[in-house]
């Protein structure tokens, strides 16, 4: 068995010259520093994780982790990488905290700091070593080594006892213990990192107490000459110096793992997924949520100080621009008229800005903030709507008496020219929306919408007229053309769709009747406030609103009706989404959260920029032009501009990440071309659709997540699917997901089989419905508020597992058997036609948590097998309950207690919880059931289902069994049957075992074949599939996942 692909914690990153070394599991990934392409993958420390990578003399590279280290010689010559193992793996008898290569008198030594505060000095030449202890013996979580002078090595030890110890090893001195020179006290928690920067003469420590602390070293003797000459820097006499705590910095909201100092800039990373950039004088320059909520374990900066690399618990490695002055100071435009206030602002394609003030004067400024002139627009001096065109070369004004004027920037750096002024409406114009470069929709009183286009000659053609359906506030907030439809949002929050193709184009300015009927209305799509913006993204439409949500729609062309279907929605990290920008490969969603303006990348799923502008409800504009994003806004009666180069936001991905917390389920759903597509869910409460390609690049599979769907309010314990339709180009699946807070969700996922390259737009996900056992929070909260002494007695149940059963007599009905943590099996009915889910039966099965459930059928009988934390497998006859549900689907839910006559048989399988199982039918009505328990027991039984001849009663008999308690040293959390007679099992002990079974003459026996250690911790399960080469692949998941091939 060998590992083919791994995605888990990235614990080490090191940049050396033009190579980037990344340690994930036992594998060292070597990337090219220019192209970020993977050059090579070497298995270094199996079965231990790489915790550190350090460079040494003569192109040496040492990799360490656990109590193991090994050294390579690595050359990059003319683009060719050569790697040779310099020494075989060395095993020490203690945990390695840190290591450093040190040269004395031309000899190379490797200093290794161990977890009990001792240093092991390894002489590479003679291959002998000696060990030196610090007089203070304690356990270290962190430390670093400084080669101070010809003979001295300084050790910084970060202890469990909140202290940093500084001690010295003198090479000439042959004692075995060394005294502590300095103790740095101040932290209130375990020290997780301590580094020393000789240039800044600062020690930086990070801790459990959420702080980053800088400690200044200064010379005792000469108080006034703190600045030591540069040449003498390394000869600091550490006995003589004075160390004082200089700064305590708060910025992280969880434990701070590591820090780096470069170019007078300190970068810290932590468990909260934040990468904080600080100036050494104590200013937080920037804060990036770098790994989507997953802890960041490792960080390094390229040798030219231009790029930062981070590695996280999501398995990702990202590259970030190293920018010192990340936050741009907003620039104040000179006040043109001291006593008038700016009302509207916008950016033009040329880079010039327009400012329209309350008196009706339009100013134009160039990008150096110099005024280029002004226009007085008398018509618009009291009331005005101003909208810049999509191409940003025109701006449209609309008046209270129904006029519109369009001004165009004809000559750059000159005043605008009016190209049109015409009365369009008989009433006040409430809103103007640009649909295309020369097409607008104008909204007048009583919901009249006029779609007009502007010809080259400056003529206005009224293309069609629509009427917004009646609502409390009947005017337009957003509009877009999508697949020949006009999609509009009104102020009351409704979305209306008009089919424009039906309309006969009418001329003349006064059309009161319209044949353009609204063909579809979606009520209050983003709450009671109007839709803010529409985005057309390939074949999908997205609406954005002031509930911070993006909602996706698609035109359903299949059934020959032009109707929009609602797909899923996506929560943005903002309260108010106001717009978007499109770049060549990304969509930036723009909006506000509290006092900040936010730019969010849809491709990277992250906030790119936050500008404290004071919040929404102001005139602002944001433009992407020439690799710059310009944000223009009014604050406190003044206009500010911020420019951000797009390069600030580029964060190339070296390795793609996955779930930010434990994965509870992975289900392969389809194989398209060379790609295996799977769906997954976990503790981070997201559902993901991802694929892995069998095409290898430098023996690494390509893996990417196509889409992330939220909607679960707690962890997802299971995902199961049902294939509704599969043909060559189109696959349709019904997905059921559920877990914490007793929530179950139904999705439909369509995957279009497009060529070889899969894109996220090839997937459409319909968020069909959600069911919560105790209702949604909103209604519960009210109850709570009514009386302070009211307790809801019902337990907070969790759903643990599901089994889907499609009724053979009535295919539209799908029954879901859900195993619950309160000992119930709950039966839901999902109707494919009405797309409704309803809870039909509660069946109390046991007073324990049911962890697993499966369904067997025998003739017309439906038998449910539950497995629970008491180690018992219970076979329960659900035939009657189900037939009642199918016959009377309208009936209310029923509760079944003590239905002891339903119980067929109990098998005592384990001492405690059953954590995993797989079942296989070997002959008609004969099954093999393999279970893995909390008690380390690997159990296989063979049983038979039959009617007892006399009274037609169901009977299940145990034919044979086999078990082993030595297969694993901890809980067994995954078991799977594979082709032929192969079984795999995996446990929390990170061991994957492969066995084959034999069942002959009624006797079951199992032979152990082979094993491998996995680097996935907190293992939650096993799954398998066939890749495009037809190889059988086993996938272990938990904290990350690993793909193994036997």
């Amino acid at each position: 068995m060998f590992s083919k692909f791994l995605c888990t914690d990235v614990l080490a990153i090191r940049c050396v010259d033009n190579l980037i070394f990344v340690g994930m599991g036992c594998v060292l990934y070597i990337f090219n520093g220019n192209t970020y392409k993977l050059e090579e993958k070497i298995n270094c420390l199996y079965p231990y994780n790489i915790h550190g990578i350090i460079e040494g003399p003569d192109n040496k590279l040492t990799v360490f982790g656990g109590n193991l280290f090994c050294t390579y010689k690595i050359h990059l010559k003319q683009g060719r990488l050569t790697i040779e193992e310099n020494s075989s793996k060395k095993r020490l008898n203690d945990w390695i905290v840190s290591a450093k290569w040190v040269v004395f008198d031309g000899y190379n030594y490797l200093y290794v700091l161990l977890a009990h505060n001792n240093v092991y000095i390894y002489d590479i030449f003679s291959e002998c070593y000696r060990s030196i202890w610090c007089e203070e013996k304690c356990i270290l979580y962190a430390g670093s080594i400084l080669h101070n002078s010809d003979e001295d090595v300084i050790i910084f030890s970060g202890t469990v006892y909140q202290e940093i110890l500084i001690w010295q090893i003198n090479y000439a001195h042959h004692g075995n213990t060394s005294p502590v020179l300095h103790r740095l006290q101040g932290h209130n928690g375990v020290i997780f990192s301590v580094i020393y920067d000789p240039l800044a003469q600062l020690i930086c420590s990070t801790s459990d107490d959420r702080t980053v602390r800088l400690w200044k070293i200064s010379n005792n003797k000469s108080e006034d000459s703190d600045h030591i000459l540069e040449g003498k820097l390394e000869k600091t006499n550490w006995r003589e110096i004075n160390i004082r705590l200089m700064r305590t910095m708060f910025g992280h909201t969880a434990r701070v793992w590591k820090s780096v100092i470069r170019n007078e800039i300190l970068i810290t990373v932590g468990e909260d997924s934040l990468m904080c950039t600080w100036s050494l004088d104590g200013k937080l320059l920037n804060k990036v949520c770098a790994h989507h909520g997953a802890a960041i374990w490792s960080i390094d900066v390229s040798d030219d100080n231009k790029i930062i690399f981070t590695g996280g618990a999501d398995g990702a490695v990202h590259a970030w621009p190293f920018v010192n002055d990340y936050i741009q100071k907003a620039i104040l435009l000179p006040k043109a008229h001291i006593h008038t206030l700016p009302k509207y602002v916008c950016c033009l394609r040329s880079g010039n800005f327009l400012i329209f003030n309350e008196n009706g004067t339009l100013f134009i400024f160039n990008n150096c903030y110099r005024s280029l002139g002004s226009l007085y627009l008398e018509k618009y001096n009291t009331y005005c709507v101003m909208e810049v065109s999509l191409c940003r070369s025109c701006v449209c004004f609309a008046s209270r008496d129904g006029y519109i004027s369009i001004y165009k920037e004809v000559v750059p750096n000159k005043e605008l020219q009016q190209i049109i002024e015409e009365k369009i409406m008989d009433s006040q114009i409430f809103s103007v929306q640009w649909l295309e470069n020369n097409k607008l929709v104008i909204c007048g009183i009583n919901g009249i919408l006029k779609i007009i286009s502007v010809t080259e000659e400056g003529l206005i053609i009224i293309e069609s007229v629509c009427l917004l359906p009646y609502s409390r506030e009947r005017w337009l907030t957003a509009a877009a053309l999508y697949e020949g439809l006009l999609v509009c949002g009104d102020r009351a929050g409704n979305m209306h769709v008009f089919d424009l193709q039906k309309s006969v184009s009418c001329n003349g300015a006064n059309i009161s009747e319209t044949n353009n009927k609204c063909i579809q209305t979606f009520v209050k799509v983003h709450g009671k406030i109007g839709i803010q913006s529409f985005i057309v993204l390939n074949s999908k439409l997205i609406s954005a609103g002031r509930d911070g949500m993006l909602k996706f729609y698609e035109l359903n062309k299949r059934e020959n009706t032009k109707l929009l279907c609602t797909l899923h929605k996506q929560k943005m990290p903002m309260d108010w989404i106001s717009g978007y920008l499109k770049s060549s490969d990304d969509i930036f969603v723009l909006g506000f959260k509290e006092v900040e303006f936010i730019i969010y990348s849809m491709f990277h799923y992250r906030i790119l920029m936050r500008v404290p502008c004071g919040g929404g409800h102001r005139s602002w504009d944001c433009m992407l032009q020439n690799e710059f994003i310009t944000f223009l806004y009014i604050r406190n009666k003044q206009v500010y501009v911020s420019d951000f180069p797009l390069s600030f936001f580029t964060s190339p991905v070296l390795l793609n990440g996955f779930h930010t917390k434990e994965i509870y389920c992975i289900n392969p759903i389809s194989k398209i071309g060379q790609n295996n597509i799977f769906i997954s869910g976990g503790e981070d409460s997201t559902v993901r659709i991802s694929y892995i390609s069998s095409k290898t690049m430098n023996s690494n599979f390509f893996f990417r997540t196509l889409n992330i769907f939220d909607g679960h309010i707690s962890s997802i314990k299971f995902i199961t699917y049902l294939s509704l339709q599969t043909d060559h180009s189109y696959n349709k699946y019904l997905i059921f997901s559920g877990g914490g807070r007793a929530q179950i969700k139904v999705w439909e996922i369509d995957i279009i089989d497009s060529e070889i390259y899969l894109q996220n737009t090839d997937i459409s996900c319909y968020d069909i419905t959600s069911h919560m056992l105790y209702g949604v929070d909103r209604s519960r909260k009210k109850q709570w508020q009514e009386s302070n002494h009211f307790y809801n007695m019902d337990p907070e149940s969790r759903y643990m597992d599901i089994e889907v059963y499609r009724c053979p007599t009535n295919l539209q009905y799908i029954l879901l058997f859900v195993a619950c943590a309160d000992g119930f099996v709950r039966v839901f009915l999902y109707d494919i036609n009405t797309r409704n889910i309803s809870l039909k039966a509660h069946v109390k099965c046991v007073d324990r948590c049911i962890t697993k459930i499966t369904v067997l059928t025998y003739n017309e009988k439906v038998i449910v097998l539950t497995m629970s934390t008491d180690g018992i497998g219970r076979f329960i006859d659900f035939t009657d309950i189900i037939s009642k549900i199918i016959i009377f689907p309208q009936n209310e839910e029923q509760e079944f207690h003590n239905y002891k006559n339903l119980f067929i048989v109990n098998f005592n399988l384990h001492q405690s919880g059953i954590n995993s199982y797989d079942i296989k039918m070997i002959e008609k009505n004969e099954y093999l059931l393999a279970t893995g328990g909390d008690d380390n027991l690997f159990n296989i039984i063979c049983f038979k289902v039959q009617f007892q001849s006399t009274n037609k009663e169901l009977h299940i008999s145990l034919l044979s069994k086999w078990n082993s308690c030595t297969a694993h040293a901890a809980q067994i959390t995954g078991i799977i049957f594979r082709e032929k007679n192969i079984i795999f099992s995996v446990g929390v002990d990170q061991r994957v075992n492969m066995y084959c079974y034999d069942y002959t003459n009624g006797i079951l026996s199992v032979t152990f074949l082979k094993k491998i250690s996995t680097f996935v911790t907190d293992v939650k399960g096993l799954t398998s599939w066939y890749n495009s080469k037809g190889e059988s692949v086993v996938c272990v998941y938990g904290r990350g996942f690993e793909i193994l091939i036997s």
Partner: protein
Amino acid sequence: MGKTSKDKRDIYYRRAKEEGWRARSAFKLLQIDNECHILNGVNKAVDLCAAPGSWSQVLSRRLNENYKKALETGNATPPKIVAVDLQAMAPLEGVIQIQGDITNINTAKQIISHFDNEQADLVVCDGAPDVTGLHDMDIYIQSQLLLAALNITTHILRQGGTFVAKIFRAKDVTLLYAQLKIFFPYVYCTKPSSSRNSSIEAFVVCKDYSPPEGYKPHMLNPLLTHKPCDFDELTGINRVIVPFVVCGDLSQPDSDTCYPLNFEGKEYTYHEPVQTPIAPPYQEALTLLENRDTDFRRSDVNVVVDNLSSMTIADFKKQAKQKHKEITKSEISKSQNSKNDDSDDVSELDQLMFTELFDESDNKDKTT
């Protein structure tokens, strides 16, 4: 989430509060005792890494019961319990407390002096490190803690005595079993039903302390050296096999099951925790978050304490408050200068509206 949600999620948490235990872990020791009878006949016991003290509470109750029973039949000496922890712990009746390090020989001497230079019948240790999430490291630190506990135990436990300690059942656990087997002929791995099914935590019960002949306890090296181990050796046929025992029969509730608040027909009343938890290392950070001016999650707040000018966090807070006041003042005066100022005020109003609207999505709860 209401204050009852934790009560619902975990029946042992609820029961611990009802029965007056300082932590739910008390049930773990009780259940281990029910199965393995570790407290029978014990008169002198040591609780290592005792804080917050729930195991000491159990020892105190049970050993006094033993004593009373013994008194009925004849002479008996009152029990003695010594609790050791690095942290200070709220006092407990009948428990002698030592604030000390278990890797220090003086701690061992102190313990024995409390027993009138006799050795203990039982040593228990429920200590665990703060888990970092780096599994291999957490397991290593836990194993070091267990070995340190074992090491001090070799100084203070009598021949034939019992040792119970927390262990992480994970990769390489067999190595630990092997080391325990050197000192105890009977080693079991037990899991009380009050310990969650999903948890890697388990407890080793080691009986009949019999150190190898000629073994002299020492403190020089606080750990029993990790011999370089061959991975295959540990997983092959010759590896140490330690029986796994589940403690707590089916009459005991299950920690993974959600029970209604009125479970077993008892009327539910809310109980406050017996003891408020000890201040976490990040207490200071928490207090900063409470105040808007020092809430460093906000983009417009920078919390850096300049220690060289001997500034304290309290000073910083005061300063931040002052600064905030000044800013608000200047903004007010600005807006008074110019009429028709609505942009910022409206935006604030709007925020209020939105916090109300979005209360729910922000309360996304992932704990269940």
